[in-house]
Each structure stands twice: as structure tokens, then as C-alpha cells.
């Protein structure tokens, strides 16, 4: 996703000279092409994320569209108050990009697991939160947030994520993408876990369970219509996120469902329970621990069979 992001950004920066890129001394083997083509609109601010975010605000308040880029929690939690007070309060045109959403930096350890970012960014007024599900969505999301005024947070995976979309989908901020349709249950995924979710849906189809899969690439503003349609048209909603169960996609969808007056929709959340992951291993290994492997996701839906949820 990071390579797709930077190539898309370069493409956009050719046409739009207001676009700047700031990095916090990270981006080796990724951002160099931008630096080479636009040296006057690229700054490596050093290992100083608070300053990076403040500088981005100052540039944005001077008319620029400013991307800040770093990995895991560095561009978000390390400088959270700058994001809140400087970027969000002033509705500054700053686009915060984190590489390494979820367990993408798996074996690097807890410091490099971005597992509460969506909840925390979502809580900030004026912030738009985007987590594309594959490289195709990454390119579309990058273009979309450039056009979308004001603060945005874009959570990316890392490298070599599988492509989910065979063709370019209609991508609009705040509108979920129906990746596959189905009438039994709805799986709603955000970010790079979309691929596993689609695979799980394929597995379920072989057993006669037709799962609708939504890519909820925008966590805020949430596509409540898509959630309501799923509640009306399918028998269960299951959210899938490589993120804490507190405050992320599952919470956002639950907030919509809880306010429905007559919803009898069965609802489950799959995500990371409220703990720090202290295991060491690959991204898929860590995903498996928290029920985010293809089989675990499929099993969670199968466990609903027999409760009138699925055939």
C-alpha cells in the first residue's frame, strides 16, 4: 500500500503544486521518488513528530495540502495534541498517513502495532478517518483525501498486500464498497483485513452461507446507510478489524445499531481484545491469535449457524 500511496501522491503532486510531503525521518525505499521530483515540497523534519504536525499546520494555514507520513503510532499518538489542537481545531488541510496499521510491523513488537489509532483519530472533531482495504482502494483513497477539505487520517498497511478489487470500484469518502453481495450475513471490514474477510466469505459460500462483504474504508464519517441496509437485508452483521475492539469499526457500527428502535440483527465484533499483544511473530500469526485469520473469521460466522442466522 505504501508504494501505491507514494506513486499516487507523486501523480497528484504533478498536477497540484499545493501538495507537500513531510516525513519524520522514515520512508526509506518508499518516499525517495517524491523527494527527487519535488525537492522543494518535501521535508524530512527529523525524528520530531510534534514539530512535523505543527509545521504541517502552518503550511496548511498558508494554503498548502500537507501530508505527514511516518509509521505505526508515530504520526498519530506521538503528536496527538498537535493533531487535536493545531490540525483539527483549525480544520487545517493536513493529511496524516500512517504506514503499518494493525500488526503490519508484526515482529517489531508492541511499540510498532497501530491498534488503537482508529479509535483515537475517530474521536477527534473535524477528523475524517480512512483505512483502505487494498492497494486499489489506497490509490483511490489518496486521491479522495486530497480533494476532501480538512483534516484526514489515512491508515495504510505496509507492503505487498493482496489486491481485492479486480476492477476499480466507485470510491467515495463515507460510502462503503460492496465487495460481494449476499443475503445471509454481512461482514464489514476496514483496512487491510478486508482480504481475509473476503476469503472467509468465499469459504462460507462453499458451505451455503452467502455473506455480503462491505469494505468500510471510511470509518468517519461512517456510512450508516450501508449499515442500516445490512441490518434490514441480512440476518447478522459481523465487523472485522485489525484494531482494538474499543472504539474502532465494531464500536462505530454498534453505535448505529444500538440506536435503531426495532433492530433484531445479530451483531458480533471480531478484533483485538483489550490487551497489548506480547506475542512475537508474523502478521498472519498475530492475526490468528486474535481471530483474524481467514479460518477464524469463517468459524465465527459458522458458529452463528443454527441460531436462525444462516441456513
Amino acid at each position, binding site marked *: 500500500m505504501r508504494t501505491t500511496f507514494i506513486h499516487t501522491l507523486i501523480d497528484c503532486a504533478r498536477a497540484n503544486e499545493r501538495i507537500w510531503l513531510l516525513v519524520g525521518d522514515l520512508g526509506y525505499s518508499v518516499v525517495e521518488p517524491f523527494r527527487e521530483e519535488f525537492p*522543494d*515540497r518535501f*521535508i524530512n*523534519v*527529523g525524528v*520530531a513528530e*510534534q*514539530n*512535523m*504536525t*505543527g*509545521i*504541517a*499546520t*502552518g*503550511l*496548511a*494555514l*498558508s*494554503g*498548502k495540502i*500537507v501530508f505527514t507520513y511516518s509509521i505505526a503510532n508515530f504520526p498519530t499518538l506521538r503528536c496527538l*495534541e*498537535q493533531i487535536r*489542537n*493545531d490540525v483539527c*481545531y*483549525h480544520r487545517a488541510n493536513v493529511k496524516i498517513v500512517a504506514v503499518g496499521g494493525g500488526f503490519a510491523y508484526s515482529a517489531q513488537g508492541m511499540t510498532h502495532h497501530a491498534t488503537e489509532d482508529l479509535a483515537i483519530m475517530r474521536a477527534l472533531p473535524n477528523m475524517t478517518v480512512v483505512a483502505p482495504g487494498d492497494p486499489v482502494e489506497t490509490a483511490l483513497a489518496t486521491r479522495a483525501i486530497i480533494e476532501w477539505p480538512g483534516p484526514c487520517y489515512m491508515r495504510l498497511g505496509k507492503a505487498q498486500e493482496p489486491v481485492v478489487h479486480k476492477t476499480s470500484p466507485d470510491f467515495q469518502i463515507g460510502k462503503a464498497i460492496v465487495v460481494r453481495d449476499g443475503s445471509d450475513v454481512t461482514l464489514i471490514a476496514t483496512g487491510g483485513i478486508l482480504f481475509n474477510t473476503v476469503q472467509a466469505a468465499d469459504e462460507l459460500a462453499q458451505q451455503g452461507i452467502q455473506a455480503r462483504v462491505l469494505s468500510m474504508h471510511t470509518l468517519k464519517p461512517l456510512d450508516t446507510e450501508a449499515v442500516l441496509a445490512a441490518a434490514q437485508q441480512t440476518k447478522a452483521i459481523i465487523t472485522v478489524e485489525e484494531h482494538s475492539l474499543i472504539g474502532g469499526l465494531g464500536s462505530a457500527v454498534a453505535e448505529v445499531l444500538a440506536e435503531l428502535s426495532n433492530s433484531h440483527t445479530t451483531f458480533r465484533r471480531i478484533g483485538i481484545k483489550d490487551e497489548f499483544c506480547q506475542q512475537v511473530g508474523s502478521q498472519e500469526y498475530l492475526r490468528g491469535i486474535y481471530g483474524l485469520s481467514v479460518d477464524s473469521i469463517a468459524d465465527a460466522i459458522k458458529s452463528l449457524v443454527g441460531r436462525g442466522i444462516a441456513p
Partner: protein
Amino acid sequence: MNDDLVKFNNLAIKIRAHALCMTHKANASHIGTSLSIADILAVLYESILHVDPKRPTWPDRDRFILSKGHGCAALYAVLAERGFFAKEWLETYCQDGSHLAGHITSHGVPGAEVSTGSLGHGLPIGCGMALAGKHDSQPHRVFVLLSDGECDEGSTWEAVLFAPHHHLDNLTAIIDYNKIQSFGTVKEVLDLEPLAGKWRVFGWAVQEIDGHDYTQIENALKGIPFELGKPSCIIAHTTKGKGVSFMENQLAWHYKSPNDEQLRQALAELGVPE
């Protein structure tokens, strides 16, 4: 006194009087810090800043950031005196439905460049504005007024490192060095000395002045950039609570609000009728 000095003095007295009345009416904190920057603001807004009250967002305006957002009563006062908004607004300071919050807010307040309140935010934003100005070959300058206490913040020092590296000689940091921070003297809490030396070795061109001497303030501000290619730092030695005898150098006036009698006495010392 020459004419300019009289003008500075008159404006500074008005700033102090407004700030005292605002703080009194709102039962608000931070009068000491507003009084310590009154003279600097008077010179800035009387003779240095290229700003236009009729066009508060004029693209070529100089940018002034009050990074020590708690000194806002003084800034609101000078903005009102310069005609950015009606002086009546000052009476609403911190009141229900007011535009004027207890830390500087740019939202709905013409002339206030950015909202601050948490320390250590202003200089990074100023760096961004100065970068944009340089990049776009714009004539405007960026001024950031910091407190001494906020020189404890790591984010301030991130920006102190950054600005010289990028040769931001259109950026000026002014430090209101009144020697008293939120919960004690600077010396007791976290000594900044040698403060000028620190900024200098980080690559800034530094001048130290008496922050209540109009001639020194004006000469320093008219002399920027002190060195081409370097950001300028003015360390203004000031007195917290300056101008009101019983408030000077008293930590308590970081928090207390003057009562009726104290307000009367303070205004009398300034020579301002109630």
C-alpha cells in the same frame, strides 16, 4: 519622550487597563502574564506588524502567533484597540456566549492568527508559516511570542532545531522571560540558563533586551533578521505583573483575579480613571 514612545506608552497602558478589567470581570487567571507582554505587544502592533484591521486575512500580512495562549487578554485588548473588532467584545471575555475564550482563539476573532493554549505549539506552526512564505517568495514575516515556561516543552526545542536548519530568517521568536512559570520560578522549576546561549548554539541570531524598554523593543524588532539566513530570537527580560506594584514578581497573580479594591488600585497606578 518622543512621539513614538508616547504612542507605545499610551497603547501599553490601555492594554494593561483592559486586561485588568477583563480579568476582574471574568474572575479569570493569568493577569501577571498579560501585564508582562503588554509593552512588547504595544510596539508590535503600533510600529512593527504589517497587519490591516480591515483585511484581517490579507495574504501578505505579517503572522503573529501568541504561543503563550494564556496571555490572551493582552492580545485581545491590542486587537480591539487596533480596530480588529469592537472594544465592547472585551467586556464579554470568558462570559457566556462570548467570542473571547481564556486562551487565545482565532475562531471568530479577527486578527488572532491561531488558537493556542497548550504550550509548545506556536513555534512549530510558525516554522510552517515561515517555510510557506519562503517557498512562495512572500514578503510577510512570522513572529511567535513564547513564554519562558514553554521553553520546557520538547516540541519547542524540536522547532528551535528546525528553523535554523531551514534558514528561516523570516521567523522571529520572542521570549517573554519573566522568570516565573506556572508553579514556581524558572530557576527553581527547571533552570533555562544560559538561555541566550542555548538558542545561539542551536543556530539562532539572538538579542537580549529589556522587554519593558520601548526603544530597545523597537530597535530589536526593526533589526530583524539579525543575520541573513538565520531565524531571530529576542529574549525579552520582563517582569511578571509589570505595571501594578502588588502584582509584580508574584506567582500568585498567575492565578488570582483582582477584586474590586485591587482593580481600583491597579488602575490608579496606571493613571487610568475607572
